């Protein structure tokens, strides 16, 4: 990939998605910095309220804009996007008004275990579980250390999609601590609703039951999608996650899992969450210290 000589940033690729979409790949590789740039650019575009823009979709290392070409010529949009890209630059000083959220998850639950055992023939390592396999290829001595790494530091919601409400999450840790695993050799035809999975460099919570190719580690008791909008967190939108949310996956045992499930069923469940202004510079400079602070905001009084 060619780099921009002046800024040192990778050169963005601007592309037409037919006549109705403009797709911008900021970089081929994932990093926190590139996701901050995608968010900064799409946030600014949102504020401009240009006529003819139908959808603005930030994604992991890229973003996409749906445009009505009868109102706004895609080339005109692209030239404005290039200007915004210059203005945003290396996202120095980028701040994001967001929220920190406690997301319970039961690791090695019986339901995803049953699902993953059904599809061993589609897996890289049919003789291990997804967790055992992922721990090994990431250099962990055992799966408990691997679980501790996943549950110990918060995550940034970098993209929403695939199906409504499914969040892609990227952990707020230095690149050398990032977990990376391949997707299944051939995708499963079944994944339980609310399964906690991992593929490439991203953790997800599957919003609905369906196909899927990510490694399966556990199950979240609380939903990320509520089409009937029964729960308080879903009153404004049928989906809970928002790009830029900071989530902390917290391991729960079967007892707490069941207790949360019953509160979801009777409609009284609400996510623990706190408003927070996220400073990109601090996350890049000293992630461990900043993460401690973030967790303090979430769990402190």
């Amino acid at each position: 990939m060619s780099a921009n000589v002046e800024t040192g940033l990778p050169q963005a690729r601007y592309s037409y998605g037919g006549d109705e979409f403009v797709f911008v790949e900021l970089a081929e590789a994932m990093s926190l910095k590139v996701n901050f740039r995608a968010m900064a650019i799409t946030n600014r575009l949102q504020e401009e309220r240009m006529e003819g823009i139908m959808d603005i979709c930030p994604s992991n290392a890229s973003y996409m804009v749906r445009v009505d070409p009868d109102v706004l010529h895609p080339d005109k949009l692209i030239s404005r996007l290039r200007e915004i890209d210059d203005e945003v630059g290396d996202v120095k000083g980028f701040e994001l008004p967001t929220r920190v959220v406690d997301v319970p998850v039961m690791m090695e639950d019986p339901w995803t275990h049953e699902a993953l055992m059904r599809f061993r023939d589609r897996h890289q390592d049919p003789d291990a579980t997804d967790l055992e396999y992922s721990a090994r290829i990431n250099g962990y001595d055992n799966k408990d250390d691997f679980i501790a790494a996943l549950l110990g530091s918060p995550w940034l919601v970098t993209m929403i999609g695939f199906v409504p409400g499914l969040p892609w999450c990227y952990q707020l840790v230095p690149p050398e601590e990032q977990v990376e695993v391949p997707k299944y050799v051939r995708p499963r035809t079944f994944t339980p609703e609310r399964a906690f999975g991992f593929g490439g460099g991203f953790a997800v919570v599957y919003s609905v039951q369906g196909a899927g190719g990510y490694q399966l580690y556990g199950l979240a008791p609380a939903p990320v999608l509520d089409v009937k909008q029964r729960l308080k967190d879903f009153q404004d939108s049928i989906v809970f996650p928002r790009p830029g949310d900071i989530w902390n996956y917290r391991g729960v045992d079967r007892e707490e899992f069941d207790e949360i499930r019953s509160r979801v069923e009777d409609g009284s469940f609400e996510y623990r969450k706190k408003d927070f202004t996220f400073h990109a510079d601090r996350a890049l400079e000293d992630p461990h210290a900043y993460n401690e602070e973030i967790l303090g905001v979430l769990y402190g009084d």
Partner: protein
Amino acid sequence: MAIRVKSPGLLTTVQDTGRFGEYAIGMPPSGAMDVFSYQVGNYLVGNEDGAAGLEITYFGPELEFTGDAVVAVTGAEMPPKINGEEAPTWEALQVREGDVLSFDYLKNGARSYLAVAGGIDAPVFMHSRSTYTLIGLGGLDGRALQEGDELELGEAQNGEAQVGKRVDDDHIPTYTKETELRVIIGLASYRLTEESLETFLNVEWTVTPDADRVGYRYRGGELGFVEREQPAGAGSDPANVVDFGYPIGSIQVPGGVEPIVLMNDAVTGGGYATIGTVISADRDRLAQSKTNDKTRFRSIELDEALNAREERRRKLAEIKGSLS
């Protein structure tokens, strides 16, 4: 006034123009797959643009009317019958209380559209009445029609005055077993070798049985990816990229063997390399292709896509004018 579903057909759903502005939360637009036929149906029965109708796939339903109504069938050649008597397509038809509308076998195309004066009065969910079955929202309880369903109709504007009006033969599309689809190459097309990109554009592809509202899968050639060390976050398969957004109409090539064109109920993002996008004006014809039909993809520039879009809009305006 309602429509009673005596038998639902293979897959009959309530659809309108679709659900826009929610792509960022992963909500695909849904809506009529063949927008042209759907729109013309509304013109025929005197509806406002955007009134909901039925999309009928491959095999038609049997519908009983509990009152007088004006209807039109457009799209695929699936001849309608009123009380067993064959009736014309692309024409506004009068049906009376107790009449039963059924359909003969599909002759050409894949999807028929039933427009009813007043439109199907399903509840509006996020700006649209369109059915999205995957998570069960829109339309009738978020699902395809079932035997025993009752579909309420909206207030008809001036349906009676439309009876007998028909679309000029020149404007009625013909569906063939060979389709050419125009695409704009781009997105992550850099992942394909030059040779493979050429193969993609030269091969005659066959529509597989895996062709529905989510996407169309094709077979016929094998494509290879440029070798690279996979970037952080992408996963190890050469067809994988760091997960990104998928435009409607975009073409992905998982494993290099089966191109998939994403359609109205598609997933909105994922980690497969996408290599281009079918232009909006050609998705109507795509939606009328079916299993075993042949397809070629032709690369065009944006200008040609915008001209095709303009041409389609001009044609629709002309038809609308001739029917009002």
